[in-house]
């Protein structure tokens, strides 16, 4: 995957992208509140005020008739000029640039990045191009750590920007594992919907995929499922299906798909019966399965 795959198409925000919300409330003019001396919230160059400097940027709020692309460009330029501001610019991306479904058409971002995910990826890419690799990794980790669900999803969708290799893989795997521990389908989907999930070991990846079945995340959201599904995953999915059937519950189509996708282990009962049918095939003997 290249940057191009996760960044919004230049100059073509798509017909479904709404304009940003009404402008954030303007600051109180002529009023500069005294600080109580608690210091900077940001480790790298932020002055902790967040206010005056941010608002000196030319309007990105849509009230002046600027388009989505102009507003995103201005935001990206702002991050390039002052990467220390990313801590409060990143959360504000939707309000300043816009929000809506991305190419997948899914506004929840389960089936693919939303428009605002792409805009946030552009911010992350600007950060990468502006600061050193060590600080870039620290900032990405902090954006995730302090992110709400929308921001966390955007960081997960941006993980390919970290590149590959030891440190990048460790960071990506750590953030993905965090998302998979939770129960938010948007984050589970984004954690497995990125090529960066290659950094997960097989055990963690299989459990993530199985968790999709428990969390109403469609398997269509999982990146590279057909290539990575293995016999062990098929065994786990078959166990899930058996448990559902034993309880008299419906087996979701995605579970059957997973069983069908996964190569069948040579020693698995049901694969050496000469029919070539796997565990998901209908019984050929007329017996109840």
């Amino acid at each position, binding site marked *: 995957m290249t940057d191009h795959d996760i960044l919004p198409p230049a100059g073509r925000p798509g017909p*479904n992208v709404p304009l940003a*919300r*009404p*402008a*954030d*409330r*303007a*600051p*109180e003019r002529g*009023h500069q*509140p*005294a*600080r*109580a001396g*608690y*210091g*900077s*919230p*940001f480790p790298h160059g932020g002055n*902790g*005020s*967040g*206010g*005056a400097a941010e608002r000196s940027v030319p309007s990105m709020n849509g009230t002046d008739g600027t388009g989505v692309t102009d507003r995103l460009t201005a935001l990206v330029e702002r991050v390039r000029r002052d990467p220390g501001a990313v*801590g*409060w*610019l990143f*959360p*504000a991306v*939707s*309000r300043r640039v816009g929000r809506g*479904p991305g190419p*997948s*058409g*899914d*506004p*929840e971002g*389960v*089936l693919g990045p939303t428009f605002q995910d792409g805009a946030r990826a552009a911010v992350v890419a600007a950060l990468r191009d502006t600061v050193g690799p060590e600080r870039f990794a620290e900032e990405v980790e902090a954006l995730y750590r*302090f992110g*709400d*669900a*929308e*921001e*966390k999803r955007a960081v997960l969708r941006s993980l390919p920007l970290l590149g590959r290799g030891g440190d990048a893989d460790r960071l990506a795997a750590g953030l993905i594992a965090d998302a998979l521990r*939770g*129960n*938010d*389908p948007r984050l589970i989907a984004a954690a497995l919907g990125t090529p960066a999930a290659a950094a997960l070991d097989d055990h963690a990846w299989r459990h993530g995929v199985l*968790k999709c079945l*428990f*969390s*109403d*995340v*469609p398997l*269509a959201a999982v990146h590279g499922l057909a290539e990575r599904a293995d016999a062990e995953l098929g065994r786990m999915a078959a166990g899930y299906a058996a448990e559902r059937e034993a309880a008299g519950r419906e087996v979701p189509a995605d579970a059957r798909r997973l069983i069908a996708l996964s190569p069948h282990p040579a020693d698995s009962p049901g694969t050496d019966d000469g029919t070539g049918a796997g565990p998901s095939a209908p019984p050929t003997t007329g017996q109840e399965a």
Partner: protein
Amino acid sequence: MRIFDPHVHMTSRTTDDYRRMYEAGVRALVEPAFWLGQPRTNPGSFHDYFDGLVGWERFRASRYGIRHHCAIALNPKEANDPRCTEVLRTLPRYLAKDGVVAVGEVGFDALTAEEEKAFRHQLALAAEHGLPVLVHTPHRDKAAGTRRTLELVAESGLPPERVLVDHLNETTVDLVDGSGCTLGFSIYPDTKMDPVRMVRILQERGLERVVVNSAADWGHSDPLSTAHTGEQMLRAGFTEDDVDRVLWRNPVEFFARSGRLLLEEAVPDTGGAFAGNSVLRGRHAEPDPPATEPRED
């Protein structure tokens, strides 16, 4: 009856409460950050709590058809603990988020110098971030705490209507009314207001700049007390429109000053843009019955 509860601590409530609130007409709420009953011992404990307010709790509410917003702050009680005040350094990260519609709860608990310092600091943060403020008034020495609150608000330069002074009663309503601040009343058994007394205040003072909340939390409280107040208003001769003004339009007007209300997203999603995913569509939409909890963990 549609209800916007401007102060309710859902973290301390169950999913049954979400169901009953939805049935009673609650469609949106604000959960201010507060003391959890058990003292925290470090800033990380606050960060996890704030993450819950902008993350899991918002998601949980959406599953029951309720739009969840929050207010973020270091609460007055824990502003006295030097192990906790460091959290003020990370507040700007949270104050920049969508759905964070105010700074709060701030204010006084025991009227200490430490509380005043944190209060001032957070009033300044509200000015910088263009956010409204939700102020808790103390249980002990309430009138003195409320007077000092109004002095600090005036010094801050914030427009008074952008400051909601909460937990008012018969003894503090006139003081706050004169300041121009928004007036908050908590309908909370035993210690705060009840529906009958609330209606009496509305009859005497009028509906302008008044919001009513349940302040329901881990104590003896009732997340339906907003609905009970609406019913009491109708019994006392107020119109449906009057009830709508107090229970919906007034709080919406107050928090809309943040520019961060998420209400427009709560309209039913009937578009075709979600084709291919039959799972999440309509989960936020009103016509659907509240969904069940996630099955895992």
